[in-house]
């Protein structure tokens, strides 16, 4: 699986929510695109990730 441009192994079957939480992400501060499509936040717990998935995990930073 590719996350933010980096390869990583998925390990066992997990939902997007499980993946984010196990990596200490605060889900309320994030948005995620999976294979180019924005994942609605309400579905993070039911979207199951696969080894071929590409994720972009983004959050707000300072900007003008």
């Amino acid at each position, binding site marked *: 699986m590719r996350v*933010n441009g980096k390869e990583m192994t998925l390990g066992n079957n997990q939902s997007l929510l499980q993946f984010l939480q196990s990596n200490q992400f605060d889900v309320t501060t994030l*948005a995620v695109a999976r294979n180019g499509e924005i994942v609605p936040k309400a579905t993070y717990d039911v979207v199951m990730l696969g080894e071929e998935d590409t994720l*972009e995990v983004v*959050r707000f930073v300072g900007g003008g």
Partner: protein
Amino acid sequence: MTDQLVIGGHPFNSRFILGSGKFSLEIVKAVVENGGAEMVTLALRRANRGGEENILDYIPKHITLLPNTSGARTAEEAVKIARLAREINCGNFVKVEVIRDSKYLFPDNYETIKATEILAKDGFVVMPYMYPDLNVARDLVSAGAAAVMPLAAPIGSNKGLSTRDFIEILVNEIAVPIIVDAGIGRPSQACEAMEMGIDAVMCNTAVATAKNIPLMARAFGLAIESGRNAYLAGLGRVLTEAEASSPLTGFLED
């Protein structure tokens, strides 16, 4: 009668919009509070690891967040960034910023119009950053922009009101709020923009590069309020010759 700034139906008492770039997280709150800003711009970037500090923890809760689409080189990229930002669940305001010139960071007006139309139809309150051009401003309004944000000078330059005359034309001709964004370097320049009838000023670098950042935020807040009051008061007329302040004395012999 209050003099509120209304954007997309939302009222604001402050006409100072703050960009949050170039600040350390700890100072962001002091800048927002000293400047009295009620709207703060943010950018969207990769979250590469969990447990990182988040800028949202440093912005007071009553502030309206204005995500920008910085990084976008096309309308399509701007739309994607805007939709991602909205998914974080912090409101539906967006600053459309589409730039493919890396030297001057001038916005691509035409891609900005395209992105504005798509996002306005998608329910966003769209505030497009633009190079001051009256035709483009009219197209942005037709496309559904809630405000129009012409640049004063290149982003980060602190140069001031380089585009003064063209911004003034927009003030005279465009019905939606005009917000000067980019290039303002001094509170006096922000004040001057407000005296011209500009509806709000956005600053970032001018505050972030000051020696005393919270104090400069306060200076900008006061300058913007001052310029607005001057505009509402109606500036006095300008003469070529002198006109005495008091009548002739009459009691001194000629």
